[in-house]
Structures are given as C-alpha cells and as structure tokens.
C-alpha cells in the first residue's frame, strides 16, 4: 500500500512541493483508515459523549470519567485484529500492551483489563489454533505486568474464520491532580522518549490494519506485527507512576500506530503547535536505521513525554532506575512538525519532514461511501426436539463455560477484584472512592449479523443489564467498532447500522460513549466479518458486594423484563437456537423503557431480600437457568405460554432472573416498568426441572457442568 494518488495531490498542493519519502510514509500511515477513521468519522457524531461526569471524552489516548470529585477512572479500548491473525500470541499480547500504555499516558495506573474475542467455528482447527494462541498471548502479557483480566467475552462464528477479532479494554485509576493529557502544553518544552529501544519491528502496522487480509498474510505481513516485552512494560508502568508522583510530565502519548511519527505529531497537533525532532537521538536497537524506519517503527513499550527543560535530568534518573532507555529527541515549537537527521558524511542536519502538524493529523479527507441496508430475515423456524435443543444450546461453545480462558488470566492481582470473571459483570473495589466499579464487555455476532441496528441496541442493553444485575448503575462506555471492507455497500450499510444502534441505546440509557476504536477492512478471501460492535461499559455502586449468580436452596424465582412473552411476540432472531438448528426469524423487540428497567434492576439487586440475580441473554432462559444451579441448590420451574422453544431460547436482552424472599416487593418495584413472571422455586440438591406443558426437561448440576465444559474438555 502506498499513498493514494488523490491524497498525494492534496499533500503536494498543501506543501507546494513533492513530499519527501519520510513525509509520504507519514501521510500514508496517519491518513490510513486505522488512524484517520476516514470511513467512520462521518458516522461517529451519532454518539453522545457528554455527561456531567465525563472529564475527557473521545480523542485522547483514553477517556476519563469522575467517580467522585477527586477520583477519576480512565477507559480505553483497542483492536488488534490483523496482527492476531498473522501471529496470534504476539498480536494479542501487544494489543494488551498498547491499551495499557494508553492508560499510562493519562497519568493513570491500570487496574483492570477485559477482552472480547471472536473466532471462526470452534471445531475448525485453524480457528482453534488462533484461539489458543490469542488467549496465551493475553495471559502471558497481562499476567506479567500485574494487571488483572477480570471480564470479557468469546464468540465463535463462521464469518471470523479468515479474520478473528481481538478487542482489549483497560480501566485505569487516577485523580484530578494526577491527570495528564496528550495535548502538548508549551513551546520550548523537551520531548523525551522513554522505554524500549527502537528497532525495525512493526513497520507500517497502521496501513496493514487498513486493508483486507490477503491470503498469504500469515507469511507476507509478519514484519508488520510487533513483538511485546511485558517485563519492559511493567518497568514502564512503575516508572510512569513515579514520573506522575513527582509531577514531571506536561503531556504524554504512547507510541502505537505509526510509532514515533504518530505519537509526537499528534501531541503537538492537538495544541496547534509544532515540534523539532532529531531522529538520530532516538535510542536504537539496530544499527543503520534510516529516518523513515525510526519515525514509523512500531517497537513496543515506548512512551513520549513532554517535559519542562529543568525536569529532564530527573526524568532521565527515573528511567535509569527502572533500567529503561531514555532519549531527549527534540522540543515543542511554534512552527511546523519538523524532523531532521545528521548526515554522517557532512555532519550537517538534513530535514526529512517539514509539515504542518495539524494538516498531518487532521487533514485526511473523509470518505463518502455508498451504503445499503441489509434486509430483515423472514421467519423460518426449525422443529427441534426440546430436550435435544436444550442440550445443544447449553453445550454450544458460544454459551459454554469460558473457565478454560479466564483460568489462564490472573484476575485477582491488585486485590481489588470483588467479583471476577464467569459472572455477569466484574466488580472492582475502588476504595479511594468507596465505590464498586462494575465492568462488562461484549458483543453478539449472531445478533448484529441478523439485525445490525437492533442487534447493536441489544448489545448495549445487554452490557447494561449485566451491570445492573450486580446492583450497579451504568456510568460510561467505550466501543470497538469492527467491520468488513467499507467499500462494499452492504458491509458499510451493516456498519452504519451498528453505529446508530449502539449510539441510540447508550443515549437512551444516559450512558455517554466516551471513546472508542474503529477497525474496518476485517475482510478476507472468506468474506467480511459480521458487523461487530464490542462495548465495554462501566457502572458504579456503593460498596463492593453483589448478589451471586447461583441460586440459594430456598426462595422464589422471577423472570423480569421479558417483553416478548408479555406481548405474545417471542422472536428467535439472532439466537443460538437458530444457529444450532438452522433457521431465521425477526430480531426480538426490546423493552419499552430500558432506562427505567436498568435503574429498577440495579436497585432490586441490592435489596436484602434478593438472593441471586442473573442476566438472561445468550442462549436465552435455557442457559441462564442452567448456569444458576449448583451441586447444592436446584430449580423447579414451569414455562409460561404455549411456545416452549421460543420461551426457552429467545435472546431478548434486558431480562434477568431474580431469586428473592420477597416476590411481592419485586413485583411492586417493576410495576409499570417491566413485566414480571413467577417461574418457580429453588430446591435442595442440584436438580433442574423445567416443566414445558406436555414436555419436561430434567437434568442436574453435574450433567450441566459436563455439557458446559465443551471448551476445556477439548483443549485440556
């Protein structure tokens, strides 16, 4: 890939000369889809990113949200899709590294990671290889740097076979005083590069991420994948913390896509300033690197800091204490963004880049693409035996236990994890604000494949329901919007749908979308991926306790929020049931007042009479019931209505199962908000009995556990 002709013409007319080789490469990478969001930015204005607790919205390395007057959290999400296809271990590992550095550059300490992963069908050998490699890469890197991985999701869908998705989110903790941004502050300040030495790795990663994966990508594009060193990252985390402690940083940016050229030009562009960078001052790992390589290498574990001249020496001392390389590479100016190198022969400085930073950062023309709304599927329902269907849906890799995955992640380091992975949402103890921070991330390829707009609304509501089920109220969200090649009208139409759907539901829930990431061209010879919005949502609650997911041996079980059942309009579109037995249906209509539903659910979850709460979504009521029984406590339920398959397997989000000592109080709370159905009662022992009119499904916790062990049984 090289700079497109139309872009080159624009650059030539702005510069009034031909760009140098280094400039052309900078424009190519910074004006790529990955960096400049050329096809998505026109759509992103749909998101409401403002709110009274939003401190820093979209556009910085990470977003910042206030928990109280003093304590802030940062939120960021990133995709590392193409690298993870070419090299799953390193691709995924460096995805973690990148989003953690985005947290550091806000002056924050990382306290939690979450990742949403999407692969081809589990029984496909290559997909399994990618899955194992990605999980191992995340485990290796996240564990080593001591940041707990507490939440996430894994989905399998045939359309990811040629292009898996790795979306990683990070939550950090900072304060009003410690907050740093990526906006350069003052001409004359020094730019200091701290971290790993720069080598020839990850060259052109940004443009690699901005085109379809070629058939030979695994061999041909390997040089575009970076290799991570979590040990260096851990040293960087601690060094950064000390730099912030001592108030030595004026602004900061991590070196990610487009390397030093990207980070340093973006810092000054934000403030409409310039910089002079002496490229030969960069500490290098390999000899004879040329200007372009130094500028664009995506070597990992590097940060660019703006430092006042008087503080440079102290920054150097701290870097040295942590065995990190450090070089003063230039300074902030009021002029252009200028890079020079020393000519080895003459000793004179040659200017290799001299452009307006703002034009470089913001000058990329936006694409106006054709879009086509995908058609809604007609109902065509399969006729499967109820018990067979129950077994198939409960043991599908999509709904099965993900213990094999999260057991490999250190999810308790940091001693903040009050509720860990395997539950609806994680809860982190933020003792600094005496608040529990709930975190839920996920997408739903079957939903957004069936109905991009409604499916994306559902994804947002589903994450909010997860948070509310643990008694927390949504606070803010960041999104990772993954799509195929946007130049195909139907792909762009689907992508437009997920953007609008996500935006609509987040606004309805008064949950500002404070940042995100877009990844397009997830397209290969196997075709485009389903439009995939991953949402990472945080919520807050008083205290760190939450009702358990598992039932206790005594108490009534209620189903709240089932609009389909109440309106006699159950729809199976997007369900695992249809995925298993081949069929189609319209996507479920969502609850009438989602905001009131979420608020009420969060309040009820924290009532003393509430014994257990579990969100109902993927795999429907069948999977939710199966997940709630234990060896000590079972359930006897009877299904309302005369459509047992629909009732058990439809996946309308915004529903929860509540076990309570006080059903009347739950009914009162939801009166006028959402329908409440009494399903049955809990029992001693681990039996699950579902009475479906003329049929009864009978099973027990041990059998369910065995069925749900699909992934670990195969991989252990």
């Amino acid at each position, binding site marked *: 890939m090289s700079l497109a002709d139309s872009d080159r013409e624009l650059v030539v007319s702005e510069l009034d000369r031909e760009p140098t080789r280094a400039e052309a490469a900078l424009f190519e990478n910074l004006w790529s889809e990955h960096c400049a969001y050329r096809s998505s930015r026109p759509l992103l204005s749909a998101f409401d990113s403002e709110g009274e607790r939003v401190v820093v919205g979209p556009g910085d390395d990470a977003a910042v949200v206030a928990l109280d007057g003093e304590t802030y959290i940062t939120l960021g999400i990133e995709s590392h899709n193409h690298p993870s296809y070419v090299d799953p271990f390193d691709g995924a590992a460096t995805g973690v590294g990148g989003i953690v550095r985005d947290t550091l550059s806000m002056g924050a300490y990382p306290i939690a990671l979450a990742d949403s992963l999407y692969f081809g069908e589990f029984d496909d050998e290559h997909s399994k290889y990618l899955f194992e490699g990605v999980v*191992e890469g995340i*485990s*290796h890197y996240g*564990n*080593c*740097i*001591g940041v707990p991985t507490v939440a996430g999701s894994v989905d399998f869908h045939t359309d990811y076979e040629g292009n898996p998705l790795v979306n990683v989110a990070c939550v950090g903790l900072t304060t009003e005083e410690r907050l740093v941004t990526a906006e350069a502050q003052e001409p004359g300040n020094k730019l200091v590069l701290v971290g790993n030495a720069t080598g020839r790795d990850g060259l052109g990663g940004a443009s690699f991420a901005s085109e379809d994966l070629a058939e030979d990508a695994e061999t041909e594009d390997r040089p575009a994948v970076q290799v991570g*060193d*979590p*040990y*260096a990252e*851990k*040293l960087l985390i601690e060094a950064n913390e000390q730099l912030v402690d001592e108030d030595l940083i004026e602004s900061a940016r991590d070196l990610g896509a487009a390397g030093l050229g990207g980070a340093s030009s973006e810092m000054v562009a934000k403030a409409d300033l310039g910089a002079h960078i002496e490229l030969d001052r960069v500490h290098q790992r390999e000899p004879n690197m040329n200007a372009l390589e130094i500028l664009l290498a995506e070597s990992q574990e590097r940060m660019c800091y703006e430092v006042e001249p008087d503080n440079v020496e102290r920054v150097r001392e701290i870097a040295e*204490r*942590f*065995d990190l390389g450090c070089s003063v590479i230039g300074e902030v100016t009021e002029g252009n963004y200028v890079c020079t190198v020393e000519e080895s022969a003459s000793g004179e400085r040659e200017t290799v880049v001299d452009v307006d930073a703002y034009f470089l950062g913001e000058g990329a023309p936006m694409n106006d693409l054709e879009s086509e709304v995908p058609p809604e599927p007609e109902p065509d329902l399969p006729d499967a035996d109820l018990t067979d269907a129950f077994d198939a849906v409960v043991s599908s890799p999509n709904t099965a236990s993900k213990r094999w995955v*999260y*057991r*490999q*992640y*250190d*999810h*308790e*380091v*940091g*001693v*903040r*994890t*009050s509720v860990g992975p395997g539950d609806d949402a994680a809860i982190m*103890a933020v*003792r600094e604000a005496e608040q529990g921070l709930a975190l839920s991330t996920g997408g739903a390829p079957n939903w957004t494949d069936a109905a991009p707009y409604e499916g994306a609304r559902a994804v947002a509501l589903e994450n909010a329901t997860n948070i509310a089920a643990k008694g927390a109220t949504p606070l803010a969200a960041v999104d990772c919007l993954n799509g195929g090649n946007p130049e195909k009208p139907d792909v762009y139409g689907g992508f437009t749908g997920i953007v609008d759907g996500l935006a609509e539901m987040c606004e309805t829930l008064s949950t500002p979308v404070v940042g995100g990431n877009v990844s397009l061209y997830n397209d290969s010879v196997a075709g485009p991926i389903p439009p995939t919005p991953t949402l990472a949502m945080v919520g807050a609650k008083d205290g*760190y306790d939450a009702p358990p997911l598992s039932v206790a041996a005594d108490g009534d079980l209620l189903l709240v929020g089932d609009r389909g059942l109440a309106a006699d309009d159950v729809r199976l579109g997007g369900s695992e049931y249809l995925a298993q037995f081949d069929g189609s249906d319209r996507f479920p209509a969502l609850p009438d007042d989602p905001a009131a539903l979420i608020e009420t659910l969060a309040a009820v979850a924290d009532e003393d009479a509430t014994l257990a709460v579990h969100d109902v979504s993927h795999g429907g009521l069948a999977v939710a019931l199966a997940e709630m029984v234990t060896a000590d406590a079972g359930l006897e339920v009877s299904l309302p209505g005369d459509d047992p398959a629909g009732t058990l397997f439809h996946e309308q989000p915004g529903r929860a199962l509540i076990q309570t000592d006080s059903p009347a109080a739950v009914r009162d709370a939801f009166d006028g908000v959402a329908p409440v159905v009494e399903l049955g009662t809990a029992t001693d022992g681990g039996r699950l009995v579902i009475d479906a009119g003329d049929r009864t499904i009978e099973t027990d916790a041990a059998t369910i556990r065995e069925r749900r062990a699909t992934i670990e049984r195969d991989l*252990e």
Partner: protein
Amino acid sequence: MTVSIVRFGGSNCDRDAERALAHLGIDAEIVWHEDGLPADVTGVVLPGGFSYGDYLRAGAMAARSPIMTEVREAAADGVPVLGVCNGAQVGCESGLTEGAFTTNESARFQCEHVSLRVERADTPWTAAYEEGEIIEIPIAHGEGRYEITDDRLAELEDEGRILFRYCDENGDPTPKANPNGSKHAVAGILGDRDSVAVLMPHPERATLPDVGPTDGQGILRGLER
C-alpha cells in the same frame, strides 16, 4: 522497625502485600532491590510477580541479585522471611528453601482458589490455625509444581518442614486436588529454620475482607512483631 517487601523489576504483588499487611496493622514498606534492606528490618516479604520477566528461569535472576545476600543474612539472624509465588521461586533459587517450583503439569498459567491443609500449626506462619485445618487461598502461577528428589523430600517430611499441602474438601491430598502436579502435593515449605517459609498460593489475596475470603491472614501474621 518495619517489614520490607522487596521489589524487583517485574514484581507485581508488592503493593498487594503492603495493602494486606497494613490491613492487619503490620507496618511494612516496599524496598527497591537496589536500595538494600534497612538495618532495622523486622521481616522480609519476597512478593509474587515476574521478576526479570521470568527470563532464564522463574526467580533465577532475582535470586542472584545483591539484596538476596542481605536477605539470607537476615534470615540467618532469625528475621522472618516469607516468599510468595515468584518469591517462593526466588527463595528456592537462592537456597533459602530446598527444591524447585517448575512448570505446571497443565503447562498453562492457572488462577483459581484452592484448598490447603495446614501440616504444622506450631510455626510463626500457622499459629492461627489447627494442624490439619483446611484453608482456602488463591493461586496464580504457571510454574508452581514442586520438585525435589524423593530422598530429600522424605527427609524434609521427617523433619516436619512441609508447611502446606493441596487437598480436597476432606483434607486429602488427592491428585485431583493438586492443581499443578506438585510432588506429594507440597504447596509451601519451611527453610532450615521455622522463621523462613515459601509458598505458591497468595495469602495477601486472602486477607482483605472486602474482596473475598480471609484465610490468608494467619500466614501474614507470621510477620507481626
């Protein structure tokens, strides 16, 4: 007069140990390995993490850093020393304790809660428990399988230097309850004096009541003065 928590590059449970000890009212501070131990150190924690990125071999590089000479001297003077997870690997690599912790039988990292049987209750680390008591403590390691020669293990067992074993809900050290394939289900051992102990499970993660079980408090109380 404080406990020193030794931070190597790559340590990542140092802050957790500090928070857990503070909760118990035990004065402790993190000490950067290059700065050495303070003269009046009352106890040493070698925390979990990935010192030196586990390069070469888990714990091997840290064990050879100058501060470990000071730690061995302090241990010889009777100062209590506790190695946790990577700290246990460092303890074995540096000769504070015998044997080695190596790659899990599963060859994967494992993070989960396990049951431990208290083998001796008459040490500073286990005074809060009964002999044979079962306690719940989390593990989080990829290299926690205890290895040593059969002869030497028999001698350590005779000398009463096995502190904890992995066990099931009945207290039996069954293969199924042994998360990493440790020989004789050993989870923690004593050095040549009772005041030196290492274990793979994380007592500091089972100390703060606001995030889970608190069975690990007794172990950390071995650092109380």
